[in-house]
């Protein structure tokens, strides 16, 4: 049995270096790799390009890396909830590439499926299309978008086993499975790590072949961005 287990976040990210391109799973603050982000902040690697749907908030998620000026470029679909992000963007310290959310997900998927590019109608006729090849299929225009090329993918799952198999919980799945498939090296942090054989193979979302390092994370905060409730009536 191949064993993918590492001791923790610090060991998992030990060879991430200045200038690397990272994919980070999550949607908003939901399903983000909290332990690895903390370890990256502590390690202090810089000049990172981060592919992630969002950029966290000021004091949580990727926002913590922005505070330490570790990010050179963000590739995201929506970055609205972060004042420090805005400050760095307007001052020119931070580069940002905004791309449609479906394009972001599918460029990850393409990388994980071994396909160099995809064709999508998203952005045709808009500034997103500038400089991109347009192809017409069956009377409709599509943009050619390239698969992402990232040294590391860092994902968060609910359960994982020592063989690297992953199961996600609820909508914290989001970008995690496609990013897990897309990294040259994929690091998975999980809330509960079990022995190989304890997960039902039929229920595995990400097969262990895509995961290179796995560890059980600790102290998950799982912060809620917009707490919306109804009153019991």
């Amino acid at each position: 049995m191949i064993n993918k287990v590492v001791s923790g976040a610090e060991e998992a990210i030990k060879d991430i270096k200045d200038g690397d391109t990272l994919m980070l799973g999550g949607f908003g603050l939901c399903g983000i790799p909290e332990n690895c982000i903390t370890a990256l902040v502590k390690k202090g690697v810089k000049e990172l390009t981060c592919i992630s749907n969002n950029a966290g908030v000021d004091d949580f998620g990727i926002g913590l890396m922005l505070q330490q000026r570790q990010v050179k470029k963000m590739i995201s679909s929506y970055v609205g909830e972060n004042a420090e992000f805005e400050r760095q963007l307007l001052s020119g310290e931070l580069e940002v590439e905004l791309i449609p959310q479906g394009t972001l997900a599918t460029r990850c998927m393409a990388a994980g499926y071994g396909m160099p590019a995809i064709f999508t109608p998203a952005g045709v006729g808009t500034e997103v299309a500038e400089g991109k090849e347009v192809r017409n299929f069956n009377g409709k225009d599509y943009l050619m978008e390239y698969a992402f090329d990232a040294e590391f993918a860092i994902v968060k799952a609910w359960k994982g086993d020592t063989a690297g198999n992953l199961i996600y919980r609820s909508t914290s799945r989001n970008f995690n499975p496609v990013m897990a498939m897309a990294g040259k090296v994929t690091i998975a942090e999980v809330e509960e790590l079990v022995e190989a054989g304890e997960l039902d193979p039929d229920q595995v979302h990400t097969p262990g072949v895509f995961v290179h390092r796995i560890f059980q994370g600790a102290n998950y905060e799982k912060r809620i961005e917009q707490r919306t409730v109804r009153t019991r009536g």
Partner: protein
Amino acid sequence: MLDKNGIAQRIAREIRDGYYVNLGIGIPTLVANYIPEGINVVLQSENGLLGMGPFPFEGDEDADLINAGKQTITTLPGSSIFDSALSFGMIRSQKIDLTILGAMEVSENGDIANWKIPGKMVKGMGGAMDLVASAKNIIVAMQHVNKAGESKLLPKCTLPLTGVKCIKKIVTELAVLDVLPEGGFKLIERAPGVSVDFIRQATLGKLFADDDVPEMVF
């Protein structure tokens, strides 16, 4: 003249039994409150959920269960959860019957601008460009004029586009309008008490209106 809830209520009448629907942030979210009795719809949230339920009861919030607006929500019997690529797969392959979203501007040929104002902080397009490029049926929910009193229904959009030739129907506080395939806005219904002339003055793009445009009925 309608308030936001009135716009949402009017749009809800466009929803048919068995529809899968994606609701954008803002007025579109309110549409869920007005889906008529006996109409079964499944709401899609593009972060990876079909069958979005209401907000949880206080104390039942689950950080792992949110909608595309990052709000805590619930699932319903029959809900399913999936990853982001699959979510946009079902959008691109037109499995979603209706998309309802807000806009800053719509042009008389159906172009939409709703993500960027030059000179202001740009937050991003999120899933809007994917949705408008692929949806077979899009309704725009918006105010007829902006805060400066300028029409948002234009001959041509002035803001950076989100998508081209994709909008077919618009519901505002003043009117229901179709975008004609050959170009131009066709006035379908007036909000209660609003005259055709008033709507004409608030519409900068080409407006086609019959002599007897009906008032909305709720």
